[in-house]
Each structure stands twice: as structure tokens, then as C-alpha cells.
């Protein structure tokens, strides 16, 4: 479970919400409304104040690198720092089964980042994140660059994660996707987070 109390930063009014264990919460809002600001504050990449906890363990008790292993954040445009794809994986063995389940062949790891397509890179970024086995996932448009069939495999993977007890906060512009995966909705507008009643 991810619980957030009075989280605050420039561009984001104090907000409180929880994402229960094994469920997915959708976060929607127009661009520039503060979705990324919220996610970056949760993962502690920007200065912020407030209480964030995973399963009642406070963020402040974690060293920052450990916190980011416990709460995985997939940005809309994931970064790559090495030439070879495999160099972005801490544990290649742990990544292989996930690669298979998401429709990627393990030998893609031997390729170079610039030869992978946008959609492949997006999935690879998700795989390297899941290989750390985080308990909470913050996903910023994880299927934006994918075709319908691949979206389905990614959604199946996310459903698997949910059944393992992972909590997911999902930014998605796809209303149908949110309906398929999420039980709870948050909207954000001008930095104000509100809970939305299920339609």
C-alpha cells in the first residue's frame, strides 16, 4: 500500500491519498497540470515535504536509493546512459522472463539503445524497472508508444503485478485502459489533486 499525506512541492498543492495493496489508481489531468511533478515528488527526485509510506514504512526511514528500489517510477521518456541495452540491467537473469512475457526476445539485450524502436525502448524501461521487484509502481503513460496488441500484453503484465500485491499509480490518457485496470481515480488540475467518484 502506498500512503501519501500532505505531500507538497512548488507547483503542487498539499495532497493526501492512498493506493491500496494490489490495486491500481488512475491519475488523469490535462498536460501541465502537475502529474509529473507529483510523481517526481513521490519518488523523491525533487525537493518536497510531506509523508509518504509503503506498507506503513515511512520514506524518511529509507536511504534514497533504497526508496527508489521499493517504489519504481517509469517516466514518460525513460533515460539511457550506456550504449548497450544490457548495461542498463542490474540483473539480466531476472529480466529474461519479464522480457518474454512482454513480447521481447532476450537477444535484444545485446543490441544498442539507438537501434531499438521507441516502443521497444518503452517496454525495455518497464522491464528493467520490474526486474527490481518494486512494491509500488508509478507509471507515466507506459503504453503511449505501443500498438493495440502490445498494449494488451503490457496490461496483462501489469495485472500480474497487481495480483502479486504491487500497488500501481497509473498516468494514462486512455480512458478505456484506466477502466480496465483501475478501481480508483485521481484527477489533477492546476496542481490540485482530487479523488474522482467511479463513474
Amino acid at each position, binding site marked *: 500500500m502506498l500512503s501519501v499525506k500532505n505531500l507538497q512541492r512548488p507547483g503542487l498543492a498539499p495532497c493526501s491519498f492512498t493506493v491500496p495493496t494490489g490495486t491500481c489508481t488512475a491519475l488523469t489531468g490535462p498536460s501541465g497540470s502537475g502529474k509529473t511533478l507529483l510523481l517526481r515528488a513521490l*519518488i523523491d527526485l525533487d525537493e518536497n515535504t510531506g509523508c509518504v509510506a509503503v506498507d506503513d514504512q515511512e520514506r524518511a526511514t529509507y536511504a534514497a536509493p*533504497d526508496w527508489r528500489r521499493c517504489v519504481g517510477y517509469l*517516466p514518460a521518456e*525513460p533515460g539511457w*546512459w550506456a550504449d548497450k541495452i544490457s548495461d542498463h540491467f*542490474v540483473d539480466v537473469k531476472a529480466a529474461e522472463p519479464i522480457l518474454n512475457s512482454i513480447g521481447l526476445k532476450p537477444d535484444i539485450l545485446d543490441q544498442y539503445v539507438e537501434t531499438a524502436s521507441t516502443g521497444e525502448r518503452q517496454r525495455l524501461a518497464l522491464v528493467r524497472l520490474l526486474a527490481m521487484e518494486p512494491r509500488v509502481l508509478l507509471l507515466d503513460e507506459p503504453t503511449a508508444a505501443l500498438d493495440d496488441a502490445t498494449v494488451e500484453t503490457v496490461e496483462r503484465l501489469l495485472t500480474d503485478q497487481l495480483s502479486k500485491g504491487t500497488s500501481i499509480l497509473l498516468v494514462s490518457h486512455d480512458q478505456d485502459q484506466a477502466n480496465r485496470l483501475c478501481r480508483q481515480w485521481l484527477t489533477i488540475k492546476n496542481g490540485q489533486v482530487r479523488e474522482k467518484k467511479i463513474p
Partner: protein
Amino acid sequence: MNSYIALSYFDLMIAASLLLINGALSIWLKLGLERQYLIAAARMVVQLVLVGLVLKFLFATTTPWWTLLAAVTMGGFAGREIMARQERRFTGWWGHGLGFGTMMIAGSLVTVLALTITIQASPWYDPRFALPLFGMVLGNAMTGIALGLNTLTATVTRERPAIEAQLLLGATGWQAMLPFTRRALTNGLMPIINSMAATGVVSLPGMMTGQILAGVDPTEAVKYQLLVMFLIGGATGLGVMLAIFGSVRRLMDHRHRLRLDRLQRPA
């Protein structure tokens, strides 16, 4: 040995007339450089004449306090020069302090070492040895530090997604910065490595040439030049490392966040 030929001011005027030819060429070819030429030459004359007078005074007095004051002033100018060459400076006193601080630490450490152990001047702070050495060390370390810092801040700003991607996978700030730290160190140290490699083959160092012109035996002049090059090499390495490691620390905070907000945007 004592074949030193004193120059008269008339000799210098003849040499200075070369600049007049350059100026005339610039006007004739409409290069528009004559103003800059004139100003730079005038600055050089005024600065060097003043420095000559200051050094004469300092050598005559040989007090530690005046020598220290002169050294700190030199360090201040070097620090300002480093700052002026930065595209993205640190905000607050770090912007001013980083260049000056690292220059003073690296420069004085190496100079004091040379004065007390190698040259064994007496007293060790004798400005006749201390200030020229310190000046040469500063001048070269300055270039390396400025280059290294510029590389670091430019790369880190550009590579922010790559650095943050590593942080997001549980890397520490230090690990995430390592490839870019390395690049900055290499760039900062490259000039001194190049200049050590080229010395004597491509270039005859100014100090050695000066000594030879002043009548010193060439092999003796070479020994002094080697000493100076070692000092410069040591001080540059030390200064560049201090400056880069200090900056990396400043660019990361205790929660391992990349703090680009601690850099100013280029004007």
C-alpha cells in the same frame, strides 16, 4: 654565466612598434581588431609595470604578511577568471568560492612543498621564490579547473535524463554521476598532459627561455623548468580533482537528487 643584457626602454619601444604594424594592417584590411589590440597591449604594459613595482617592493621587504596578501590577491584574480569562463555557474557563494578555494588549496599546497623541501629558500616564504612559482602554478591550474568545471556542468545539464534514469534504478548519486565525473576530469587534465608531452619539442617554455636570455646555463634552466612543470602538473591534478569532486557533491543532495537548480542558467 653573467651575460645578462639589461634592456633600455628604447629597446622595448622598437619591439612595441611591431604592434603598430599589426594595428595598421588591421585598419587597412578593415579587420576591426585595432581597438582590441590597443587595449590589450595597454593593459599588458600597465599590469606588468605595476607588477614589477609591486614585486620590487615585496622583495625588498620580505615579510610573510605582504607575501600572503599578494598570493591571496593572485588567487582571487584566478578564481574570478575561472568563474568568468563558466557557462553555468553555481548559485550563491559556491559560484565565487569554488574556483578561488580550489586554486588556493592546490596552489599553496604545491608551492609551499616546493619552497620548503625542494628549493629550500630562506626564509621559505621569500617572495622572490614564492610569488613567481605560485603565479605559474595558478595560471596553469586555472585553465584545467575552468575546463573541467565547464565540461561537468554542461554534460550534467544535458545528460539529466540519463543520470536520473540511474537514480531511479537505485543508483547512488555518486554512481550515477561517475561517467560524467570521469569525462570532466579527463577534459580538465588534458591541457597539462598535452603541454607536458609537447614541452621541449613543440614549445620552449617561456620561463626557461627567459632564464636562458637572462644568462642562465641551459641545463640549469631546464632543471628549473622541470621543477615548475612538475609543480604545475601536481597542482593542476589536485585542483581539478578538488573542483570536480566538490561540484559533484554540490550537484547531488543527501537524498541523491540531481540539483540542477543549484546552477545558474547561461545569460
